[in-house]
């Protein structure tokens, strides 16, 4: 992390990433004298337009699509809502059935939940204990009136990677449904070539790839027609209205350029491997959540039986280490994460889970430091836990 002026170890890159200083530098002029509205006719506006279109080109290059197939949005949440609700409303006369999975990000699940209230029908596919869904299940659930299948590429909690290319092909062979994939976690770590993947729509955002928080994009193939989510002045070819966030769009473009150059898969996978090996060598009763490999590069999710996730996060915080709990203990309901629940490993595992996600600015030294701190705190919390190694209470 020495590239940034912080003395903490940040190992929560799946939640958000630092902004790469190169990205920040690119953005700054647009927060200063290049402040124009790209929709203005005058020079100040035309400069901004140029910057937006150049950035669009860079995003398109990363995804291997046409520039006009990129719609800038405010987040992956918006991109997912747009793809899902936009399809639902545009195709409601063809059918009202949508297929997704139980381990999608909340923004997919909640958008679908809202559509259910509006009279749409959603199938939520099960996954196995490692988070994989079954190709046969999708085939079985496809119907005449299925208008959309939305399946994420790599899960943000447990790192499971779905065979998107294969799924998209089957969906297209057997139905008229659009295929959308949420690949917010993937750029810079996996193949995000939408032509290779064969998808109709794909979601990404900047703040998982060393860009700023508050800008996302939806890839939408040129023949795909969906309703806008934000109606208005007609920006983004009428697909998404609202004055363009020029500085962030420029930053997003730069982030895509950097992600293309620095494929970090190998480095991140090595960190993950060392981390898992060291933890398992030094700490007992550890359960790995999600597949061992391949998985989302840099992502690790493990349960330290008997140690509640939030407690462990806060203990590590005292060591200056930032990681995440897999359990949504701080959300409104006191439930374990819906993803870990879908993996069906029991609440003891779910509530003991910790997500460690390394990124561009982590080093092998960080891995060592996290293992060190983990060993100490897991030991300590286990000495006061009311749960034995079998997940039973007390004594």
């Amino acid at each position: 992390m020495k590239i940034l002026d912080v003395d903490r170890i940040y190992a929560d890159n799946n939640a958000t990433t630092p902004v790469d200083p190169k990205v920040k530098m690119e953005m700054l002029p647009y927060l200063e004298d290049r402040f124009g509205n790209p929709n203005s006719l005058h020079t100040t506006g035309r400069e901004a337009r140029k910057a937006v279109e150049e950035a669009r080109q860079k995003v398109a290059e990363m995804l291997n699509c046409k520039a006009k197939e990129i719609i800038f949005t405010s987040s992956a949440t918006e991109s997912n809502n747009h793809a899902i609700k936009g399809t639902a409303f545009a195709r409601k006369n063809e059918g009202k059935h949508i297929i997704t999975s139980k381990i999608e990000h909340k923004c997919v699940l909640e958008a679908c939940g809202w559509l259910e209230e509006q009279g749409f029908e959603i199938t939520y596919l099960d996954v196995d204990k490692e988070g994989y869904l079954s190709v046969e299940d999708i085939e079985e659930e496809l119907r005449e009136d299925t208008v959309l299948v939305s399946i994420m590429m790599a899960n943000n909690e447990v790192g499971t990677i779905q065979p998107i290319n294969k799924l998209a092909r089957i969906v297209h062979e057997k139905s008229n449904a659009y295929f959308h994939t949420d690949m917010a976690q993937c750029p810079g770590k996996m193949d995000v070539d939408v032509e290779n993947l064969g998808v109709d729509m794909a979601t990404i955002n900047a703040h998982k790839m060393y860009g700023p928080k508050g800008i996302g994009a939806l890839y939408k193939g040129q023949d795909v027609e969906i309703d806008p989510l934000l109606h208005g002045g007609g920006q983004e070819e009428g697909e998404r209205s609202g004055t363009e966030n020029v500085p962030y769009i420029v930053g997003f473009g730069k982030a895509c350029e950097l992600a293309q150059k620095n494929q970090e898969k190998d480095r991140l996978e090595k960190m993950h491997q060392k981390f898992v090996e060291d933890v398992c060598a030094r700490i007992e009763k550890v359960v790995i959540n999600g597949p061992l490999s391949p998985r989302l590069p840099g992502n690790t999710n493990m349960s330290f039986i008997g140690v509640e996730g939030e407690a462990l996060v806060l203990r590590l915080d005292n060591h200056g280490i930032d990681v995440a709990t897999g359990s949504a203990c701080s959300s409104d309901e006191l439930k374990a994460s819906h993803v870990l629940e879908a993996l069906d490993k029991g609440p003891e595992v779910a509530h003991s889970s910790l997500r460690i996600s390394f990124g561009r600015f982590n080093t092998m030294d960080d891995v060592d430091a996290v293992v060190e701190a983990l060993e100490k705190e897991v030991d300590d919390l286990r000495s006061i836990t009311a749960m034995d190694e079998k997940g039973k209470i007390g004594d």
Partner: protein
Amino acid sequence: MYTEKVMEHFKNPRNMGEIEDPDVTSKVGNPACGDMMNIYLRVGEKNNEKYIEDIKFKTFGCASAIATSSVTTELAMGKTLDEAEEIEEEDIAEELGGLPKIKMHCSNLSANGLHEAIYQYKKKEGMEISEDLERKHKIAQKTLEKTEEMRQEHGLNED
């Protein structure tokens, strides 16, 4: 989100661990909610009244659960059983300078654990049990039943 006092108790929990050979042990909570707690009591007698001579806890739970467990034992230590019976959720939260709304159930759980330990002791000793304590015992039992259900549904060691 947490007060300093919560964080302090979380970092340095008081009275943690087990009492060797306790007079009584209570178990409350259920893993579905992510919180489980054991309370260990040693009961003494002073001026003809039973009082809490020693109390310890073990908790599986979030920072708030650990902090409320810690402060509950601190509040109970040295009190007579009847006094300790009256320690309620609100007292615990107040002692910690407040808790986030969604974490209030944690202080409820540790009050539960304390009351259940007192119930068990009084029952074992054939002492009189108030209606209120009886009610609290029922609640504590409920949380445990859920735990058993959960375990049967899943089974931890499959994976």
